[in-house]
């Protein structure tokens, strides 16, 4: 493809859209599909066909709109009018939308998502900017929305150094959790010695309740591909891999189609845009091991070996896939690249806080009114996220804690609701940004039970290579179980703390050294709940069944149980 052809494609697409009197956009990402979007799509397509409205009404399946708990979602878009989004749409209702709103221009009275919903007002979409408007399975759709102009610009006007400088200027940091400055990482790989260099996109998100990466890949796969191609140009890589969980079939399928289309259009493969730049992308499936989100374990898995981490150094930037310099970034990080190139590093650096720039996607889950996917500027407070965007806590319950970063993160109590969200602040609170899972807990959650849940997850997902993570998580879980069932003693709290510190300090990889975070942070902010379980033998919120006794009390308890059993 040439510059002219790209422009022609964009123009044709835009004109095609303009020709419709009304466009019906069906959110077609996993959450909406699971609540019935396929039926809605079919009903609309059939109705349009039956009434011979093909030229007038467009039905497009798009990426994620955001308020996932309200799906299926249908957006009505008419030129010169504001979008109207309908929630909980059934196939029957969809036909009504078509008949009354699309054809009659009469907004229906029910199921309309309020326009001034703070859910949308406080978001700032960069990565997901086109998510709700474009068809993820159409290259034309992406190009029509300005796609591939960044890659073209880079290839025509910029040297690799300039690209790296632009990313550095933007202040972008890795969105996978660690927050390493992206530009710096690119520079390391660019400067690393080696004839062959690789590039890897990490799409192996495994936090319970998190689906930022899945959505990015599902909603705008070309954006990820374009970001990867720009990065490959900057660091000098000619082969890329996208590592996707096998549990994300839709994301993988859309990526696969996107790669095929991009290759056919010669914007992926050899001589991209007619230049001397070659870059190929293959998909690798992960088998669902959480540890494979850790970069060294992921690389080992890409090479076809048992997915276990190895100690760094050597860092992947110097020795990654098959010993070659390898750039590995999260898919959300790659999603930020094209916008930065298009609008400039300075623009991006203008968003966010001093040390954390740009936006971050979060998956809002748990006890909150609006669960869903949001993209917010760094520096927004937790309170805004929970009470404005999230719409507060349902069923009259109170807010208790926000869990960020999944099993590697910590629980942040109400006292810190006004903390601006950025990498440093979350770390200071004993949590992490992580990949963007945000689970809200209400005052009916037992924090010991929450810690137990996450520790069980980590124990289960520990790869077993290093001792502290393998045995430490198992031993910490044992103590948490004892606290929950009433057989712990106060000394166990001390032991938990000691072990937590030790596992943090001595584990081999990120899974291990962050696994004590949920325990340590709840011990820090909710210690009285732990003590109530042990000293008063009660779970303050009534979640845990205190049925066991500490060892010393078995002396009286065991005979009592035998007598009791005989009575009944």
């Amino acid at each position, binding site marked *: 493809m040439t510059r002219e052809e790209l422009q022609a494609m964009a123009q044709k697409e835009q004109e095609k859209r303009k020709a419709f009197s009304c466009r019906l956009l069906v959110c077609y990402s996993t959450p909406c599909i699971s609540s019935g979007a396929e039926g809605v799509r079919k009903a609309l397509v059939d109705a349009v066909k039956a009434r011979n409205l093909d030229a007038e009404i467009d039905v497009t399946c798009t990426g994620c709109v955001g308020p996932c708990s309200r799906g299926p979602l249908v957006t009505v878009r008419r030129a010169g009018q504001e979008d109207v989004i309908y929630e909980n749409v059934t196939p029957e209702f969809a036909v009504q939308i078509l008949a009354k709103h699309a054809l009659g221009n009469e907004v229906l009275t029910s199921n309309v998502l309020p326009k001034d919903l703070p859910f949308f007002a406080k978001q700032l979409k960069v990565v997901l900017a086109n998510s709700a408007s474009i068809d993820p399975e159409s290259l034309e759709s992406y190009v029509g929305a300005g796609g591939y102009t960044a890659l073209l610009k880079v290839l025509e006007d910029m040297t690799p150094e300039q690209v790296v400088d632009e990313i550095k200027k933007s202040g972008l940091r890795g969105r996978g959790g660690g927050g390493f400055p992206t530009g710096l990482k690119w520079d390391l790989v660019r400067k690393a010695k080696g004839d062959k260099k690789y590039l890897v996109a990490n799409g192996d998100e495994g936090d319970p309740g998190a689906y930022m990466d899945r959505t990015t890949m599902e909603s705008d796969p070309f954006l990820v591909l374009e970001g990867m191609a720009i990065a490959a140009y900057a660091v000098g890589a000619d082969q890329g891999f996208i590592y996707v969980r096998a549990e994300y079939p839709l994301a993988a399928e859309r990526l696969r189609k996107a790669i095929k289309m991009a290759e056919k259009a010669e914007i992926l493969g050899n001589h991209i845009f007619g230049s001397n730049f070659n870059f190929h992308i293959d998909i690798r499936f992960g088998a669902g091991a959480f540890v494979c989100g850790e970069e060294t374990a992921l690389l080992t898995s890409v090479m076809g070996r048992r997915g276990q981490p190895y100690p760094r150094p050597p860092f992947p930037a110097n020795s990654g896939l098959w010993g070659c310099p390898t750039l590995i970034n999260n898919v959300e990080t790659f999603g930020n690249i094209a916008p930065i190139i298009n609008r400039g590093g300075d623009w991006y650096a203008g968003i966010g806080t001093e040390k954390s720039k740009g936006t971050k996607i979060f998956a809002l889950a748990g006890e909150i009114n609006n669960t869903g996917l949001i993209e917010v500027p760094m520096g927004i407070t937790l309170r805004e996220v929970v009470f404005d965007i999230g719409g507060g806590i349902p069923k009259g319950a109170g807010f208790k804690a926000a869990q960020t970063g999944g099993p590697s993160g910590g629980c942040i109590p109400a006292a810190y609701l006004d903390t601006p969200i950025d990498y440093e602040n979350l770390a200071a609170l004993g949590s992490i940004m992580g990949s963007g899972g945000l689970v809200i807990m209400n005052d009916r959650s037992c924090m010991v039970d929450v810690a137990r849940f996450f520790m069980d997850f980590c124990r289960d997902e520990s790869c077993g290579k290093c001792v502290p993570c393998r045995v430490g998580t198992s031993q910490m879980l044992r103590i948490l179980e004892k606290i929950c069932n009433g057989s712990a003693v106060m000394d166990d709290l001390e032991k938990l703390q000691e072990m937590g510190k030790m596992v943090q300090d001595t584990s081999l990889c990120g899974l291990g050294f962050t696994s004590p975070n949920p325990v340590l942070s709840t011990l820090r902010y909710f210690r009285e709940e732990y003590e109530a379980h042990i000293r008063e033998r009660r779970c303050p919120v009534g979640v845990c069944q205190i049925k066991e006794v500490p*060892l*010393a009390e*078995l*002396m009286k308890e065991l*005979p009592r149980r*035998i*007598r009791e059993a005989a009575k009944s």
Partner: protein
Amino acid sequence: MATKVRLATVWLGGCSGCHMSLLDIDEKLIDLAEHIELVYGPLVDAKEYPHDVDVVLVEGALCNTENLELLLQIRERTKIVISFGDCAVTGNTPQLRNKLDIDDVLTKVYQAGPGSIPKGPESVDILPVLLPKVHPLHALVPIDVYLPGCPPDPDRIYKVVAALLAGEKPQLPAESITFG
């Protein structure tokens, strides 16, 4: 003459091999005897664990409710508690049964076989109840000195007891703190 050190020895869930090893100190026992008063244990006839014990060697793991009761009493009434031998320190062979269901074990050994023991509530007044799991001593009370070995060899035992008699904290060399 200085007052003698009040020493006790206790046999919980173990095979008494550690006590045998203690006796194997042989002629050094005579030296020890000059400095100690043996106040409780399988080797003497005291019925109740006495108060104000200076040092106790506790052999065996915690296997039943009687073990629990006695060890709690021991801790309360003793200055220095020595976890004596692998069963006391690690649970050793008695804890091999931790993977089995305790009711199955009892039924298999005492009801299905030739012997029979009372089961149900009448047993509670006659027999200690088996704990669901066997534990080392330090699972229940703080321990002052660990003396591993199955059994700890006589020399090891002598060194520890002699150090304590001299008022020192026993420091065993590396080769003397091995298990098994």
